[in-house]
């Protein structure tokens, strides 16, 4: 059994230590907001936070995550009130939506480390998250909007 803390909740997981964290989240814990895209750390759809960093859960093994703090899109805020979640809705970012949880989890690290990102900062942070629908202009707009919401404390 492996002890895993996901979204502030502790789980005892009966799984191999070399199972990808993504499998554990989706198939064992039922947290399906995190998506499988490529399985090779190339697309960013599986991005979750490991001790606050935006790791690719498809290549992160369970034994690296054991005993650490994991946050998924379901735990980013208790009520979808994170500035990024509100900005995403306001800017109507998603098209098909498949990549968007990964996009938001990556953007959350950007905004934490750089509360006022420029377009270049956003490009530097977000180019690892691929969107097949090409929603990039709306993603950039929403991140700027979220920065304003975060600054305003609303």
């Amino acid at each position: 059994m492996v002890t895993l803390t996901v979204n502030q909740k502790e789980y005892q997981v009966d799984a191999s230590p070399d199972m990808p964290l993504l499998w554990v989240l989706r198939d064992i814990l039922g947290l399906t907001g995190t998506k499988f895209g490529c399985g090779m750390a190339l697309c960013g759809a599986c991005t979750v936070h490991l001790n606050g960093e935006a790791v690719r859960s498809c290549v992160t093994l369970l034994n690296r995550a054991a005993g650490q703090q994991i946050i998924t899109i379901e735990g980013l805020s208790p009520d979808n009130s994170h500035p990024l979640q509100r900005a995403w809705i306001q800017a109507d970012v998603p098209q098909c939506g498949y990549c968007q949880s990964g996009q938001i989890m990556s953007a959350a690290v950007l905004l934490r480390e750089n509360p006022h990102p420029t377009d270049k900062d956003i490009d530097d942070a977000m180019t690892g998250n691929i969107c097949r629908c090409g929603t990039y202009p709306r993603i950039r707009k929403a991140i700027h909007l979220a920065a304003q919401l975060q600054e305003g404390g609303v």
Partner: protein
Amino acid sequence: MRVVYFLLTVSFIGMIAMSFHQRSSGATEEPGKDKAASQKAFAAVYKVLMSPRCMNCHPAGDAPLQGDDSHPHMQNVQRGPEGKGVYALKCTNCHQPQNTSGEHMPPGNPKWALPPADRKMVFQGRSPRQLAAQLLDPRLNGGRTKEQLIEHVTSDTLVLWGWHPGDGRTLPPLNHAEFARQFKRWIDKGAYLPDK
């Protein structure tokens, strides 16, 4: 008696002059030093350092390199101030403490990173002479002495990764033991710079 003093003085000055002449012309070397052997050893070392497994993380720019063609890392990955990437694209977000199995999967090591922005330790584009001089300069090599350089290339886990690079990646042109031996020989024989 004056003649004797005069002869002694002349011969003493002559010996000093000859000594300076020999030192400046390199006609003699300290015991155990050998310029040709040292330079030859560095030529072997240089081939390894410029191989993709070493050079890809010592780029001239601020993006790591990938593959045997040393192309810039996909996803616009940046060095960052500490050499660990930026924001959501930090090295260890994808690169694990170990290689991920399978071709084209992320290689890994507990120390996976580029050199930091204030000490880039660039290999790419350096001539043998430039790279040798850079390696020996404590201001540019992380404050390492020659002995520490030998220790670094002999046992550092990230250096050793170059010979265990994961599936589908070519190895450097020498095996690690021979690389470390040639590096030590370069230093032991005088750490001479290549001519070019």
